[in-house]
């Protein structure tokens, strides 16, 4: 017991000194568990996040928009893979993670349980959802666990194109016909609040935050990140000539920040618990992909084994 305490103190001292933790280093069991949970859920979010956007690839209005969206969705697949790899360094297998996703044991970002009803939603997602994700991910490039931080650096480099392509879509619509502008406004109306929810519960309702900050998994709290996002985004909405659906939103000179209305936390918890508009559809899509691909994976492995055996045969023949 005393040895354990000693190790934990040493570990905390390393974190406090700003050292990075690498996979084979000693770490408290809870640090490992928290990371497996957080990184795998982050990975799942990237993968499930492809679904609402993939919905519009075949119906993108121009070839320019189509190649942009296609490249973005491909990136999300890559991001999921970087993150799964980072989680695997902690001793969980890819297979286990996939099973946790389709059985509902692991969560993913709730935002992807909302449907993409119009082309403008693709703009709103790139601008707001990727924008919110970037705020969180930029913070995570300095997270204490090395493989997670490195994955984040790579992801952040690629992510800014996502947000710009989204904003460009919004800009095009906002400067278009009245119907197009109305479409952009409608997308903003529907994605604004869920985007704010992406930062998670309020600090006082987020029991994990304190430990996460202490271990430098997070370097800012949910509320700090949310405020940062709002302060950055409001001028961008104004530039588009669109209105954020929050009557209480107001610049607070004294605080130097925007004040904003209360988030509907009941809705947040409902979606987290699986009762959002698309939860079932998303899990069904991931389950189908896993099952439909099973024979391909088995065949590829069988082929690889055969090829290997042939190589050995040749060698022994010589």
């Amino acid at each position, binding site marked *: 017991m005393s040895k354990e305490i000693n190790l934990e103190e040493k570990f905390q001292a390393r974190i406090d000194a700003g050292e990075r933790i690498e996979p084979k280093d000693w770490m408290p069991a809870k640090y490992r568990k928290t990371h497996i949970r957080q990184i795998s859920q982050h990975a799942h979010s990237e993968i499930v996040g492809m679904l609402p956007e993939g919905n519009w690839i075949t119906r993108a209005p121009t070839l320019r928009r189509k190649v942009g969206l296609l490249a973005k969705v491909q990136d999300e697949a890559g991001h999921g893979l970087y993150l799964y790899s980072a989680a695997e360094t902690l001793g969980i297998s*890819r297979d286990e993670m996939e099973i946790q996703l389709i059985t509902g044991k692991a969560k993913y970002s709730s935002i992807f349980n909302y449907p993409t009803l119009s082309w403008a939603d693709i703009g709103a997602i790139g601008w707001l959802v990727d924008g919110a994700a970037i705020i969180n991910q930029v913070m995570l490039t300095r997270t204490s666990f090395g493989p997670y931080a490195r*994955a984040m650096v790579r992801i952040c480099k690629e992510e800014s194109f996502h947000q710009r392509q989204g904003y460009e879509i919004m800009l095009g619509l906002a400067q278009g016909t009245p119907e197009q502008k109305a479409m952009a406004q409608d997308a903003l109306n529907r994605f604004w609040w869920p985007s704010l929810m992406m930062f998670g519960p309020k600090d006082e309702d987020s029991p994990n935050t304190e430990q996460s900050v202490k271990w430098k998994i997070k370097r800012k709290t949910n509320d700090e990140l949310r405020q940062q996002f709002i302060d950055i985004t409001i001028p961008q909405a104004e530039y588009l000539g669109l209105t954020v659906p929050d009557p209480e939103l107001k610049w607070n000179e004294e605080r130097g920040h925007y004040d904003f209305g209360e988030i509907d936390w009941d809705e947040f918890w409902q979606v987290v618990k699986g009762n959002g508009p698309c939860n079932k559809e998303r899990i069904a899509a991931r389950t189908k992909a896993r099952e439909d691909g099973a024979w391909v994976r088995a065949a*590829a492995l069988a082929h690889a084994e055969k090829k290997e055996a042939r190589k050995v045969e040749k060698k022994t023949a010589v």
Partner: protein
Amino acid sequence: MEYPIFEVFIRSKNGLEHRHVGSLHAADEEMALENARDVYTRRQEGVSIWVVESKHITASNPENAGELFEPAKDKVYRHPTFYELPIELKHI
């Protein structure tokens, strides 16, 4: 059954070394190379790729870091500044 894990190394341009960039799953080396190309070089990040199955890598253990790396700490005589020469001396 899962595909084995491969580690991926990329040379970003000729003249530079291959650097470890991450890992991926693949059925064999060929698929590992193809996947590495798709995953790690979507924006011209590389001109050459190495893949090696992770199980073939032997790694030092952090627990032995002391005995492995500390002996180098007190060997300052391996550095040029250890040797005291007059400052008026040039090109040495």
